[in-house]
Each structure stands twice: as structure tokens, then as C-alpha cells.
């Protein structure tokens, strides 16, 4: 930790200075990157550390967002209730999904998480009177937590604070005895059982923690766009965040955050040229698995250690 302290301080300084350096459009893009960085890191806890590949993570992201959107737009509820409620309900949904999905492993686990997430998407899409269907819910106004977060600068700082605290918590978790136990479970469940670990309970806890942070990211996302639609629950969201994790480097936390930045910037750039963003996303995925299976962070580490050996 101490070794990285100068880098961390410089990074914090840069993030704090961004509103003074960037025009409004790019600041808003930075806010989006931070939100997706948190979403990708939350998924990495599950995939990279616990070895559970989920293709339904958008369910928690989307539910966090929808709860905030519905409570604010339909219920006129205070942000002091709506915002925590989004996170709590996403966490509860995570607990429910975990109980159902943890009966399976590997690609079966992946299919169950995908199916469960599609159910949530289907509800949001079909229940027009409540959710507005695929028209979505416009007019989610940004919250006031002591100060108004309506303008881009203050909202950016709010997201930075939330994502910063979450990243700190996630890094603490993966370095803790619990985080090490998750790595052990990823490597061999039977060995962990033989050592006296309650494997199921660890996987359950990892799933719930992961969905809590995904829910937080979703709530922030909806405040950021001031709008929520079934898009946030769509399987493409789940696939996109999965690709962010794989592109950045599975099991590194920092990697998925970088992967999120790359994908968001690429999407922004490609969208100005063509409508075929999903095609490009697919190509990015194929190229990553072929040439950098351990992601950008893995690529960097390999290159770095090879140079050091010479």
C-alpha cells in the first residue's frame, strides 16, 4: 500500500482538478466513467476473486436505478430515502438471486443469472403503468444532500466521493482474510471445504456485496442521466460490463475500472461515427480474448516483468 501512496495521491489530485480542466461535456463523460468503473469493479469481486461468472449483473445496477427513479418521479419521495432504498433493494435482490443461482456452477451459473436478470428486465419493460415501459421514466431530478447536486461540477464531486469510498472498501475487502478466502474458493472449492470454510456462505456474501455496489452504481447512473429506461436492465448492459472486466483484467479491481474508461471513451468516439457500436464491442471482446486474455493490466504486467528480466 505504502509503495502506491504517491500514485494514489497524484490520482486523487487529478480527479479533484478535473472540473477545472475539462469542458462540461467531458466532465459529464468522466462522471459516467466513474460510475461504470464502480459497476465493473463490483462485478470483478464476483468473477475475478470468487470465480463466479455472472451475466446478469445489470439486474442490480438497473434495480438500484429504477427504485430511485420510481420513488423520485412517481412517489415524490425524498432523496434521503430514495437513494438508500435503491441500494438496499438491489442488495436484497442480490441475496435472492444468490440463493437461486448458487445451486449451479460455471456456465450453468451464468445461464441462471442471465435468466433471472431477464425476468427483471421483462417486468420493467412490460409493466407500463408503473415503469412507463420502454419509454422509460424521465424527470429524475438530481438529489440535494446538504448541497444541491444539480449542476455537473457538484454532481461529479458527489460521484467521485461515492466511487472513491466504494473503491477503497473493495480494495480493503480483497486484501482482508475474507478476500483471500474468495481467491481460495475460486481456485478450489473442495479444498476450501476440507480446510473448514463454509464455501456457500462466502459465495453468498460476495454476491450480496457485489450487488450492493452494483446497485449504488445504478442509482448514481440514473441521477446522472436524469432518466431511467429498461436499457439499464438489458442483457447488453450485463455483457458490456463483463467486457469491461475482461478487457481491463479479471481479478485486479483496477483493471476493470480502466476497462470501463476505455469502453466508455470508445463508445463515445464510435457513436459519433457509426451506429454499429455493438459490432465494435464484439470485436473488442474477440481481440481481447485472443491477444490479451489477462486484460490490459495483465498485458502491462507481462511487458513490465519481461523488461525487468533483461
Amino acid at each position, binding site marked *: 500500500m505504502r509503495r502506491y501512496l504517491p500514485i494514489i495521491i497524484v490520482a486523487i489530485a487529478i480527479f479533484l482538478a478535473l472540473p477545472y480542466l475539462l469542458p462540461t461535456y467531458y466532465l459529464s463523460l468522466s462522471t459516467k466513467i466513474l460510475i461504470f468503473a464502480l459497476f465493473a469493479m463490483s462485478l470483478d469481486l464476483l468473477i475475478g476473486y470468487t470465480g463466479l461468472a455472472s451475466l446478469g449483473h445489470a439486474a442490480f445496477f438497473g434495480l438500484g436505478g429504477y427504485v430511485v427513479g420510481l420513488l423520485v418521479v412517481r412517489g415524490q419521495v425524498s432523496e434521503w430515502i430514495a437513494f438508500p432504498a435503491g441500494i438496499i433493494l438491489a442488495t436484497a435482490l442480490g441475496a435472492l438471486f444468490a440463493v437461486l443461482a448458487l445451486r449451479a456452477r460455471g456456465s450453468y451459473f451464468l445461464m441462471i443469472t442471465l435468466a433471472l436478470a431477464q425476468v427483471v428486465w421483462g417486468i420493467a419493460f412490460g409493466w407500463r403503468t408503473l415503469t412507463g415501459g420502454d419509454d422509460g421514466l424521465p424527470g429524475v431530478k438530481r438529489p440535494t444532500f446538504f448541497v444541491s447536486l444539480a449542476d455537473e461540477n457538484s454532481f461529479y464531486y458527489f460521484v467521485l466521493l461515492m466511487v472513491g469510498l466504494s473503491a477503497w472498501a473493495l480494495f480493503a475487502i480483497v486484501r*482482508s482474510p475474507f478476500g483471500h*478466502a474468495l481467491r481460495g474458493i475460486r481456485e478450489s472449492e473442495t479444498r476450501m471445504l*476440507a480446510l473448514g470454510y463454509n464455501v456457500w456462505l462466502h459465495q453468498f456474501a460476495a454476491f450480496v456485496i457485489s450487488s450492493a455496489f452494483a446497485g449504488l452504481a445504478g442509482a448514481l447512473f440514473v441521477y446522472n442521466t436524469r432518466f431511467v429506461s429498461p436499457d439499464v436492465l438489458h442483457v447488453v448492459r450485463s455483457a458490456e460490463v463483463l467486457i469491461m472486466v475482461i478487457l481491463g483484467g479479471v481479478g485486479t479491481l483496477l483493471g476493470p475500472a480502466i476497462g470501463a474508461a476505455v469502453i466508455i471513451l470508445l463508445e463515445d468516439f464510435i457513436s459519433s461515427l457509426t451506429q454499429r457500436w455493438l459490432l465494435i464491442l464484439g470485436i473488442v471482446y474477440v481481440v481481447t480474448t485472443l491477444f490479451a486474455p489477462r486484460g490490459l493490466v495483465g498485458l502491462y504486467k507481462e511487458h513490465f516483468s519481461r523488461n525487468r528480466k533483461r
Partner: protein
Amino acid sequence: MIALAVDNVTKSFGGVRALTGVTLSLNEGERLVLLGPNGAGKTTLFHSISGNIIASSGRISLFGEDITQLPPDARARLGLARTFQITNLFAQLTVLENILLAVCGAQQLTFKFVRPLSAYDDIQRCAQALLEEWNLADAGDQLVRNLSYGEQRQVEVVMALSGAPRILLLDEPTAGLSPAETLRVVEMVRKLPRNMTIVMIEHDMDVAFDVADRIAVMHQGRVIAEGDEAAIRGNKQVSDIYLGVE
């Protein structure tokens, strides 16, 4: 005191009977070696004792406590440790991290989310001491997957030992090892405290007779002979199985 009692245990997989009425009893500190040809049911018996499979009928108890239906982690917490016939380690983690996880498991240091594992000095010291005791200190920073097979087998045994278990199950710890490596593992087993109850599956007769207080021979899911070295060597049925009937 009876450390482990296996009472009339049967295990069927569909129509296949892997174990038929197996009964064994071990006193505390006793060392039993299980012999028997491939497919005799030795590993199935091990799995039933450690909880990786649940016996179809019969009763298994550990220090008087009925464990027949307990999951493997609950049995481990009662002081039962095991190694696996096919090396079962955390391949992408270092040797030290492997041992650390074993120590944390044994001390039930789980669901601790805040302090980094590196800050738990007692756990770190304990793991380091184990590495030094078993001559693995130099390999501590290496990934387990980069170790030789012989070294991996040693890590496998050390992980089972790191919780100072009351009863230890060793599933062919010397399988596939060179004579020199076999000797090292046998030395490890000999060095273990005498009050540790040990059940070991072994194919090498010399190793078996060297380590065992008592030997049980299994064949087609049954225990067909039990006794000391002389009794087993003199048993007609055992020599028929191993050497064939004239």
C-alpha cells in the same frame, strides 16, 4: 478413546456398490494404512469419512460425535484434515498464500473484512513457521503451479497439517513420487506427533508397513483383512488378490 468409528457403512452409486458394510475403528493416536487394489473402495471410504460424499447407510463418528450427515467443512472444524489423491491446491496462489488460507481456516479467521490479512501477525508467523518446519521456506513466494509435482505433494500434506488436526486422512501421499521424494514424505509422516490419529491409503507395501500400526486390506468394497504386518503378510486371501490364485 475411539478417534474414528466407521460402523457398517455402505455406499452405492446407482447399481454399483462401492462400499459394503465397512466397519473400522481407530484409537486416538493410532496409524492405520488402507491397502487394496484399484477400485477396492479406499477413496470412496475416505470421501465418506471426510464428507465429500455422504454414506448411503451406516454410521461414522468422530471422537464420539455422529458426523454421518455433516458437510465436509463442519467435519474439518471438528479437527479432521485430509489430502487428496489428485493434488488439490490453489494453483494460482503462492505457497505462502496456500498455507495462510489453511491456517486461517483452522483458526476460523473467516468473515473478517476490514484489516488486510498481512496485518494479522500471529497468522503470518504461524504460516512462516510451518514453511520453515517443513523445508518450504525458499518456495514461499512461488506460485504453486510452478512447483514440481513432488513439492506440490508436500504442500498438500503441509496444508492438511497446518491446523494441527486431531485426525489426518492421507490419500496416496506418495503416488507418482520418485523414491527420494517418497522418503521425504514418509519422513514427514513419521515426524508427526504421536497423538495424531492417521489413516493413510498407500500402494507401496514398504511405506505401508513402515508407517502403520495396523493395516486393513480392502477388496471389492469390503474390508477383507485387518491386523499387523505379520497377519497381513500371512493372509492367504490377501496374497491371492495381489499375486493371483495359483
